């Protein structure tokens, strides 16, 4: 009887409301059987995840084992066996010096700190002008800025390459920062506009009444107010710039301008004459900033990502 009743209620709708008394009686009737089933199910659940997790860790294990191997001891054999030495940093320093990774690390750090910061402030300015200052045709301005995200990078590459060559921006740090800022601005404007929409207008009006000018209100009140959103955007864009390969490939060639990932990609070419432990240790170490940033700010990161999409 109880079986048919419960089947019926499941069929009727899983979110149905159930009287408290019935709940207790059913729980009591069902309790003994599922206990074993449930623990088996839980065991299976965790088993599947652990097995998959080991598969996921295997490449990381290989990378670590072979990044720690002395550069000269690498023969391409016994890849799965640890070498017992710790040559991570000496391998990396070979990459920095002989592989010319050094200048790229610094210049990428420069790009990934400066471009997202500029983009965040510029985007916030636009969001402020649109939502708080209520610029005429605000929504159209917003769509113009946000529409910039529609274009795939491939549509921009050829004109940027020739345009940069004509304007002497090709292979210059300013040129790289400019394109990174331009790519980052639409997202920043989008997130900031949404954030400012949710703030009380009285803040602005009372500050204005106190005689502050719009820029002061923006810089002193609105920008500090949107700290969290700013940081979410910054993290997302830092990661984007730090990981960029394509713009670096097309718009730069000399060491000191060429970003990190582009240089690493060139190094990984078999003809570059760099050993596997050097490449792997370099790949491992240059990933640390984004690994730390990502793990420390998972939720904020995810928030920025979902904000970016809708």
């Amino acid at each position, binding site marked *: 009887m109880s079986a048919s009743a419960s089947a019926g*209620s499941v069929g009727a709708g*899983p*979110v149905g409301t*159930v009287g408290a008394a019935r709940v207790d009686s059913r729980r009591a009737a069902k309790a003994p059987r599922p206990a074993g089933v449930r623990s088996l199910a839980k065991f299976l659940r*965790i088993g599947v*995840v652990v097995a998959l*997790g*080991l598969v*996921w860790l295997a*490449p*990381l294990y*290989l990378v670590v084992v072979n990044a720690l191997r002395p550069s000269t001891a690498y023969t*391409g054999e016994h*890849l799965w066996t640890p070498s017992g030495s710790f040559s991570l940093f000496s391998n990396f320093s070979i990459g920095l010096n002989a592989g010319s990774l050094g200048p790229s690390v610094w210049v990428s750090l420069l790009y990934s700190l400066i471009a997202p910061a500029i983009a965040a402030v*510029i985007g916030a*300015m636009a969001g*402020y*002008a*649109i939502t708080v200052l*209520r*610029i005429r045709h605000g929504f159209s301005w917003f769509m*113009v*800025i946000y*529409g*910039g995200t529609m274009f*795939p990078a*491939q*549509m*921009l*590459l*050829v*004109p940027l390459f*020739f*345009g940069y060559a004509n304007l002497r921006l090709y292979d210059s740090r300013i040129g790289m920062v400019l394109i990174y800022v*331009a*790519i980052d601005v639409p997202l920043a*404007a989008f997130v900031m506009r949404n954030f400012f929409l*949710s*703030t*009380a*207008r009285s803040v602005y009006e009372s500050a204005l009444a106190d005689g502050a000018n*719009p*820029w002061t209100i923006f810089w002193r009140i609105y920008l500090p*107010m949107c*700290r969290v959103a700013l940081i979410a955007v910054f993290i997302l864009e830092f990661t984007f710039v730090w*990981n960029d390969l*394509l713009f670096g490939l*097309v718009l730069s060639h000399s060491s000191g301008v060429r970003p990190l*990932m582009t240089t690493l990609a060139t190094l*990984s070419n078999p003809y570059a004459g760099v050993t596997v432990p050097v490449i792997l240790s370099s790949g491992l170490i240059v*990933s640390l900033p*984004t*690994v730390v*940033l*990502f*793990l420390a700010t*998972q*939720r904020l990161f*995810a928030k920025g990502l*979902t904000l970016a999409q809708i």
Partner: protein
Amino acid sequence: MSQQLLTAEPRAGGSKPPPKRRAGHIRGLTGWSYGMVAPSVLLVAALLYAPFLWSAWLSFTHYNGTGSPAWAGLANYRELFSDPVLDTTLRNTALWVVGTLVLPVGLGLLIATLTYNVKGGAWLRLPFLLPYALSGTVTAVVFGFVLQDGGALNTLLHTLHLPGSSVSFLQTAPLNTIVMIFAQTWQSIGVNLLLFVIGLQSIPREPIEAARVDGAGGLRLFTSVIWPLLRPLTAVIVGLALVAGLKTFDLVWIMTEGGPGRSSETLAITMYEDAFVSGNYGYGAAVAVLLTVIGLVVSLLYLRQQASPKRELDLTGAGR
């Protein structure tokens, strides 16, 4: 600050403030607002819109980088659509889109569901989150090392006496595209997992408890309660994956450069090859235009598909 969020007044709440009042507030406010919107608009116009239009125009020209582009009408497009490379490229791109849609999103959802509400779930999820922090370049370096001939995977298969110990994973098409999709899955599962976990944690407890009480458990609980509640989030995640799959470049460029021959090229790689390796900039621009059009069509179809079932559901609900 969060309090402010809660007490925020809707912008378009009452009647629109008359423009007169706005202008009377402070002199030159229009100047301020144009001044503050200008940097964004100028940057986007100069570095995104202008190149976009320039590319569209270049796709109708022959241009080898010297002199000026020569008008060619539809010649690039005619050549493109009769090129056998395009078939391979389109097939690979479709594989990438479907593969990176099904695998990272599906597995992300699976792991999120399996580790949700499990003690130590965060630790169980860590192996899947870590690779997401690696760039496409580093992922390519890692898997280039794992998958190269006589590399770690070949060795492992040999030791375990499994077939495939002498397979050239990166030199055989279409196997190379498939293993690269797995590499991409390895890297990108983390973000989907993270989003799904956050989605699951934000599901109110009441419907789940009620369903449990009603006897729904396991798969049943998932399909009838959890999945419908996750749908809006899934729409976002699938949208992200679609776009990422279409634009696949980094991994393929580093692992195979689109080879051997041109067998593992995606649209993004074909564009780069034709423009920057062969120096046919007009032709490359035509490939970029094709990529843009496909992207637009896919997005529109997706949005339409996403919008329609919900409406039907509402209609039937209202009809009764």
